[in-house]
Protein backbone atom coordinates (compact mmCIF):
# COMPACT_ATOMS: atom_id res chain seq x y z
CA UNK A 1 0.00 0.00 0.00
CA UNK A 2 1.73 3.13 -1.16
CA UNK A 3 1.40 6.69 0.01
CA UNK A 4 -1.09 7.75 -2.64
CA UNK A 5 -3.38 4.82 -1.94
CA UNK A 6 -3.01 5.34 1.79
CA UNK A 7 -3.89 9.00 1.52
CA UNK A 8 -6.90 8.22 -0.61
CA UNK A 9 -8.16 5.71 1.92
CA UNK A 10 -7.51 8.13 4.69
CA UNK A 11 -9.67 10.79 3.11
CA UNK A 12 -12.43 8.32 2.38
CA UNK A 13 -12.45 6.84 5.87
CA UNK A 14 -12.09 9.98 7.92
CA UNK A 15 -15.10 11.42 9.67
CA UNK A 16 -17.65 9.14 8.09
CA UNK A 17 -18.64 7.55 11.32
CA UNK A 18 -22.19 6.36 11.76
CA UNK A 19 -24.56 9.21 12.14
CA UNK A 20 -22.16 12.09 11.57
CA UNK A 21 -22.88 14.80 9.08
CA UNK A 22 -20.16 15.05 6.51
CA UNK A 23 -17.81 17.98 6.79
CA UNK A 24 -16.48 19.40 3.59
CA UNK A 25 -13.17 17.95 2.47
CA UNK A 26 -10.91 19.19 -0.32
CA UNK A 27 -10.71 16.98 -3.35
CA UNK A 28 -7.14 16.06 -4.12
CA UNK A 29 -5.83 17.76 -7.18
CA UNK A 30 -3.75 15.51 -9.39
CA UNK A 31 -0.87 16.11 -11.79
CA UNK A 32 -2.15 15.80 -15.33
CA UNK A 33 0.50 13.27 -16.10
CA UNK A 34 -0.37 10.85 -13.35
CA UNK A 35 -4.09 11.08 -12.65
CA UNK A 36 -5.27 10.92 -16.18
CA UNK A 37 -8.90 11.29 -15.21
CA UNK A 38 -8.35 14.41 -13.23
CA UNK A 39 -9.56 14.75 -9.69
CA UNK A 40 -9.67 11.88 -7.26
CA UNK A 41 -12.85 12.56 -5.36
CA UNK A 42 -13.40 12.20 -1.65
CA UNK A 43 -16.36 10.19 -0.44
CA UNK A 44 -18.07 13.43 0.46
CA UNK A 45 -17.67 14.72 -3.10
CA UNK A 46 -19.10 11.53 -4.47
CA UNK A 47 -22.26 11.29 -2.38
CA UNK A 48 -23.13 14.94 -1.75
CA UNK A 49 -25.16 15.52 -4.91
CA UNK A 50 -27.37 12.59 -3.89
CA UNK A 51 -27.63 12.80 -0.11
CA UNK A 52 -27.54 16.60 0.07
CA UNK A 53 -26.27 16.75 3.61
CA UNK A 54 -28.14 13.75 4.99
CA UNK A 55 -26.26 11.25 7.17
CA UNK A 56 -24.86 8.10 5.63
CA UNK A 57 -24.14 4.83 7.45
CA UNK A 58 -21.55 2.31 6.49
CA UNK A 59 -23.60 -0.84 6.97
CA UNK A 60 -25.82 -3.42 5.31
CA UNK A 61 -24.24 -2.96 1.88
CA UNK A 62 -21.90 -5.47 0.23
CA UNK A 63 -19.98 -4.93 -2.97
CA UNK A 64 -18.85 -7.98 -4.92
CA UNK A 65 -16.24 -7.18 -7.51
CA UNK A 66 -12.81 -8.46 -8.46
CA UNK A 67 -9.99 -6.74 -6.57
CA UNK A 68 -7.98 -7.05 -9.78
CA UNK A 69 -9.77 -6.00 -12.95
CA UNK A 70 -8.07 -7.18 -16.11
CA UNK A 71 -9.87 -4.68 -18.27
CA UNK A 72 -11.07 -1.25 -17.23
CA UNK A 73 -13.83 -1.31 -19.86
CA UNK A 74 -15.66 -4.29 -18.42
CA UNK A 75 -15.62 -4.74 -14.65
CA UNK A 76 -18.37 -6.91 -13.14
CA UNK A 77 -19.96 -5.33 -10.07
CA UNK A 78 -22.64 -6.70 -7.77
CA UNK A 79 -24.28 -4.85 -4.89
CA UNK A 80 -26.30 -6.51 -2.16
CA UNK A 81 -28.21 -4.50 0.43
CA UNK A 82 -29.62 -6.19 3.50
CA UNK A 83 -33.27 -5.23 3.57
CA UNK A 84 -36.57 -7.00 4.20
CA UNK A 85 -37.88 -5.31 1.05
CA UNK A 86 -41.30 -5.10 2.65
CA UNK A 87 -43.75 -2.33 1.92
CA UNK A 88 -42.72 -0.69 5.18
CA UNK A 89 -39.01 -1.07 4.77
CA UNK A 90 -37.32 -1.38 1.42
CA UNK A 91 -34.51 -0.02 -0.69
CA UNK A 92 -35.74 2.59 -3.11
CA UNK A 93 -32.50 3.36 -4.97
CA UNK A 94 -29.00 1.98 -5.34
CA UNK A 95 -26.33 4.32 -6.74
CA UNK A 96 -23.01 3.15 -8.14
CA UNK A 97 -20.43 5.88 -7.75
CA UNK A 98 -16.93 6.25 -9.17
CA UNK A 99 -14.08 8.08 -7.53
CA UNK A 100 -12.28 8.83 -10.71
CA UNK A 101 -14.43 8.52 -13.82
CA UNK A 102 -15.41 11.64 -15.72
CA UNK A 103 -19.01 10.95 -14.67
CA UNK A 104 -19.27 10.08 -10.98
CA UNK A 105 -22.67 8.42 -10.99
CA UNK A 106 -22.19 5.27 -13.02
CA UNK A 107 -25.77 4.12 -12.61
CA UNK A 108 -28.86 4.59 -10.52
CA UNK A 109 -31.15 1.62 -9.89
CA UNK A 110 -34.71 2.10 -8.74
CA UNK A 111 -36.27 -0.73 -6.76
CA UNK A 112 -39.39 -1.55 -4.78
CA UNK A 113 -40.87 -4.23 -2.52
CA UNK A 114 -41.72 -6.20 -5.69
CA UNK A 115 -38.01 -6.91 -6.13
CA UNK A 116 -37.93 -8.95 -2.91
CA UNK A 117 -34.12 -8.54 -2.87
CA UNK A 118 -32.08 -5.37 -3.02
CA UNK A 119 -29.47 -6.99 -5.17
CA UNK A 120 -28.26 -5.67 -8.52
CA UNK A 121 -25.40 -6.53 -10.86
CA UNK A 122 -23.89 -4.85 -13.86
CA UNK A 123 -20.60 -4.24 -15.65
CA UNK A 124 -18.85 -0.93 -15.32
CA UNK A 125 -16.08 1.06 -16.92
CA UNK A 126 -13.39 2.23 -14.55
CA UNK A 127 -10.93 4.90 -15.64
CA UNK A 128 -8.06 3.49 -13.65
CA UNK A 129 -7.61 2.08 -10.17
CA UNK A 130 -10.08 3.69 -7.78
CA UNK A 131 -12.63 3.28 -5.01
CA UNK A 132 -16.16 2.49 -6.05
CA UNK A 133 -19.03 3.32 -3.72
CA UNK A 134 -22.44 1.66 -3.56
CA UNK A 135 -24.97 3.97 -1.91
CA UNK A 136 -28.46 2.79 -1.02
CA UNK A 137 -31.45 4.98 -0.25
CA UNK A 138 -34.08 3.42 2.01
CA UNK A 139 -37.78 4.00 2.07
CA UNK A 140 -37.43 5.85 5.39
CA UNK A 141 -35.09 8.35 3.75
CA UNK A 142 -31.91 6.95 5.28
CA UNK A 143 -28.76 6.19 3.34
CA UNK A 144 -26.26 3.41 3.80
CA UNK A 145 -23.19 2.59 1.80
CA UNK A 146 -20.02 0.63 1.30
CA UNK A 147 -16.86 1.15 -0.71
CA UNK A 148 -14.24 -1.02 -2.36
CA UNK A 149 -10.94 -0.40 -4.08
CA UNK A 150 -10.65 -1.98 -7.51
CA UNK A 151 -7.23 -2.21 -9.14
CA UNK A 152 -7.44 -1.77 -12.89
CA UNK A 153 -4.28 -3.71 -13.67
CA UNK A 154 -3.81 -2.58 -17.27
CA UNK A 155 -3.70 1.07 -16.33
CA UNK A 156 -0.86 0.62 -13.83
CA UNK A 157 1.37 2.62 -16.18
CA UNK A 158 -0.58 5.78 -15.48
CA UNK A 159 -2.11 5.20 -12.08
CA UNK A 160 -0.17 6.82 -9.32
CA UNK A 161 -1.20 3.97 -7.08
Amino acid at each position, binding site marked *: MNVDSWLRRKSLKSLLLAGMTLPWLMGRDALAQRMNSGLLLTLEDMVQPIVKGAKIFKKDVQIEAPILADNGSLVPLEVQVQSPMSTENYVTHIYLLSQRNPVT*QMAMFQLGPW*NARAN*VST*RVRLAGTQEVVALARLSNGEFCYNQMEIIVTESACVDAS
Partner: protein
Amino acid sequence: MMSARVQWPEKVRADDIVKVRMLIQHPMDTGYLQDLTGKVVPRNIIRTVTCHLGKQEVFRVEPSSGISANPFFEFYIRATVTAEFKIEWTDDKGMTGQHLQIFNVT
Protein backbone atom coordinates in the same frame (compact mmCIF):
# COMPACT_ATOMS: atom_id res chain seq x y z
CA MET B 1 -33.13 -2.07 -34.38
CA MET B 2 -31.13 -2.91 -31.28
CA SER B 3 -31.90 -6.14 -29.56
CA ALA B 4 -32.02 -7.32 -26.00
CA ARG B 5 -31.91 -10.70 -24.33
CA VAL B 6 -33.52 -11.48 -21.02
CA GLN B 7 -33.27 -14.66 -19.02
CA TRP B 8 -34.81 -16.16 -15.90
CA PRO B 9 -35.09 -19.76 -14.63
CA GLU B 10 -37.15 -22.15 -16.72
CA LYS B 11 -39.59 -23.06 -14.01
CA VAL B 12 -41.03 -20.19 -11.99
CA ARG B 13 -43.61 -20.72 -9.28
CA ALA B 14 -45.75 -18.13 -7.60
CA ASP B 15 -43.92 -16.41 -4.76
CA ASP B 16 -40.46 -17.47 -6.02
CA ILE B 17 -37.79 -14.80 -5.87
CA VAL B 18 -36.49 -14.87 -9.40
CA LYS B 19 -33.15 -13.64 -10.73
CA VAL B 20 -33.55 -11.75 -14.00
CA ARG B 21 -30.57 -11.21 -16.29
CA MET B 22 -30.74 -8.74 -19.11
CA LEU B 23 -28.35 -7.78 -21.91
CA ILE B 24 -28.97 -4.94 -24.35
CA GLN B 25 -26.98 -4.57 -27.54
CA HIS B 26 -25.69 -1.01 -27.52
CA PRO B 27 -22.24 0.54 -28.04
CA MET B 28 -22.60 2.96 -25.10
CA ASP B 29 -20.25 5.40 -26.83
CA THR B 30 -18.78 7.66 -24.19
CA GLY B 31 -17.97 10.55 -26.47
CA TYR B 32 -14.39 10.54 -25.18
CA LEU B 33 -12.89 8.27 -27.79
CA GLN B 34 -11.92 8.69 -31.42
CA ASP B 35 -12.16 6.29 -34.28
CA LEU B 36 -9.00 5.34 -36.11
CA THR B 37 -9.28 8.23 -38.55
CA GLY B 38 -9.24 10.67 -35.66
CA LYS B 39 -12.89 11.60 -35.54
CA VAL B 40 -14.53 11.74 -32.17
CA VAL B 41 -17.22 9.11 -31.81
CA PRO B 42 -20.10 11.16 -30.42
CA ARG B 43 -21.61 10.28 -27.08
CA ASN B 44 -24.48 7.85 -27.29
CA ILE B 45 -25.51 6.34 -23.99
CA ILE B 46 -28.69 4.60 -22.97
CA ARG B 47 -30.42 7.04 -20.62
CA THR B 48 -33.12 4.88 -19.12
CA VAL B 49 -34.07 1.26 -19.00
CA THR B 50 -37.39 0.22 -17.54
CA CYS B 51 -38.85 -3.22 -17.00
CA HIS B 52 -42.55 -3.83 -16.62
CA LEU B 53 -44.39 -6.94 -15.62
CA GLY B 54 -47.76 -6.35 -17.07
CA LYS B 55 -48.58 -2.78 -16.12
CA GLN B 56 -46.29 -2.62 -13.12
CA GLU B 57 -42.80 -1.19 -13.33
CA VAL B 58 -40.53 -3.66 -11.58
CA PHE B 59 -37.10 -2.27 -12.38
CA ARG B 60 -35.55 0.94 -13.59
CA VAL B 61 -31.94 1.85 -14.19
CA GLU B 62 -30.40 5.10 -15.37
CA PRO B 63 -26.96 4.28 -16.72
CA SER B 64 -24.17 6.67 -17.60
CA SER B 65 -21.02 6.43 -19.72
CA GLY B 66 -19.66 4.42 -16.80
CA ILE B 67 -21.67 1.38 -17.78
CA SER B 68 -19.88 -0.94 -20.22
CA ALA B 69 -20.88 -1.43 -23.84
CA ASN B 70 -23.72 -3.93 -24.28
CA PRO B 71 -25.10 -3.10 -20.87
CA PHE B 72 -25.80 -6.04 -18.65
CA PHE B 73 -28.10 -5.87 -15.65
CA GLU B 74 -29.18 -8.45 -13.12
CA PHE B 75 -31.90 -7.95 -10.52
CA TYR B 76 -34.61 -9.88 -8.67
CA ILE B 77 -38.40 -9.94 -8.71
CA ARG B 78 -40.99 -11.83 -6.77
CA ALA B 79 -43.12 -13.90 -9.10
CA THR B 80 -46.87 -13.48 -8.78
CA VAL B 81 -48.81 -14.25 -11.95
CA THR B 82 -47.98 -14.88 -15.57
CA ALA B 83 -47.55 -11.57 -17.32
CA GLU B 84 -45.82 -9.92 -20.20
CA PHE B 85 -42.29 -8.84 -19.33
CA LYS B 86 -41.44 -5.68 -21.22
CA ILE B 87 -38.04 -3.97 -21.39
CA GLU B 88 -37.86 -0.47 -22.83
CA TRP B 89 -34.91 1.79 -23.25
CA THR B 90 -33.98 5.12 -24.78
CA ASP B 91 -30.59 6.49 -25.73
CA ASP B 92 -29.01 9.91 -26.31
CA LYS B 93 -29.96 9.84 -29.96
CA GLY B 94 -33.59 9.35 -29.03
CA MET B 95 -33.57 5.81 -30.35
CA THR B 96 -35.84 3.53 -28.41
CA GLY B 97 -35.79 -0.20 -28.01
CA GLN B 98 -38.19 -2.72 -26.69
CA HIS B 99 -38.21 -6.39 -25.87
CA LEU B 100 -41.18 -8.49 -24.90
CA GLN B 101 -41.23 -11.94 -23.37
CA ILE B 102 -43.86 -13.85 -21.48
CA PHE B 103 -43.02 -14.34 -17.83
CA ASN B 104 -44.66 -17.69 -17.08
CA VAL B 105 -45.62 -18.38 -13.50
CA THR B 106 -47.02 -21.81 -12.64
